[in-house]
């Protein structure tokens, strides 16, 4: 294993030395073969011709040796890079178009993945998020998921009777208009939520206090919690 690595590293970085050695080695072989033919009585020129013929494509043999040395992949990659750069230089318009097309393609993919990742793959940022479920009611004549919601009295009944859940939370989207003395009113997304909503998810307000069960009483003073973005 170590030997293999050392061998490959030398082949890659001491490339000219290794290539020179390969040339020497193959030339020595050719000379030996020519000498052998000459000793057998063949004219020298014929011996050279015969030997070259028998040897086959010199470059092919060298390529196979390079491959056997295990650096063919690295070398081919380098060659491809050089080839690509030369072509770019020759045809810059095409190069710009290709780079733009690939760039846009990668960009669009990255954008879509970012959204899909947040929406579909990333777990909710709560402890024991695998235990959080969304409860839907069934409605006659309408297939799931289809639910116009539960009434608050229904929710109170559920909460009193359901034993399978640690906590039941109800919420309801109710946009609000906010205004102050200096600017026009603005509409914001808001939500009504049962007092135990944040506690059930293990969340604490950064400032102030969390909702308490007393806040749910009809005569309780209205309380609100602001999101950080506001």
């Amino acid at each position, binding site marked *: 294993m170590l030997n293999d690595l050392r061998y490959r590293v030398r082949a890659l970085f001491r490339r000219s030395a290794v290539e020179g050695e390969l040339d020497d080695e193959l030339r020595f072989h050719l000379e030996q073969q020519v000498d052998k033919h000459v000793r057998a009585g063949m004219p020298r020129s014929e011996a050279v011709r015969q030997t070259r013929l028998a040897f*086959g494509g010199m470059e092919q*043999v060298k390529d196979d040796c390079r491959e056997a040395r295990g650096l063919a992949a690295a070398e081919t990659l380098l060659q491809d890079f050089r080839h690509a750069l030369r072509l770019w230089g020759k045809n810059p318009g095409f190069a710009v178009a290709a780079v733009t097309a690939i760039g846009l393609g990668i960009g669009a993919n990255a954008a879509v993945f970012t959204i899909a990742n947040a929406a579909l793959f990333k777990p909710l940022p709560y402890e024991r998020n695998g235990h959080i479920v969304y409860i839907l009611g069934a409605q006659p004549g309408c297939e799931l998921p289809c639910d116009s919601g539960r009434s608050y009295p229904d929710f109170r009944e559920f909460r009193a009777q359901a034993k399978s859940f640690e906590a039941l939370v109800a919420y309801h989207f109710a946009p609000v208009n906010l205004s102050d003395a200096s600017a026009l009113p603005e509409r914001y997304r808001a939500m009504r939520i049962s007092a135990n909503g944040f506690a059930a998810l293990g969340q604490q307000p950064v400032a102030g206090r969390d909702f308490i069960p007393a806040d749910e009483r009809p005569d309780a003073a209205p309380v609100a919690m602001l999101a950080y973005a506001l």
Partner: protein
Amino acid sequence: MGERIELPQGTLDLLILKTVALGPQHGWAISERIQQVSSNAVQVQQGSLYPALHRLERRGWIKAHWGVSENHRKAKYYDLTRSGRKQLAADTQAWRKLSAAIGQVLDTVQEGKPC
């Protein structure tokens, strides 16, 4: 020159290991030696010999050093390493097993009746 045999895949490595086990050799001498010892039945093509030598060297089964040949030229000599010797023993055993098994099968087929 007698009838030549095509070497099955992988057997060239074995022949090379065996040849250099007899002492350090350069590539040309290895091919000559294999040809002679096999009574010209096996002729090693240079196109496969040198890639095989480089592959074996990379695996650490043979190691190369530069020396001077009988006719006073610079030549690359290959020698068997310790792990090469182990490999040679293992490959030889595997080859003997395989050829014996194949021989056995072929003989059986000849003796048996065709279906």
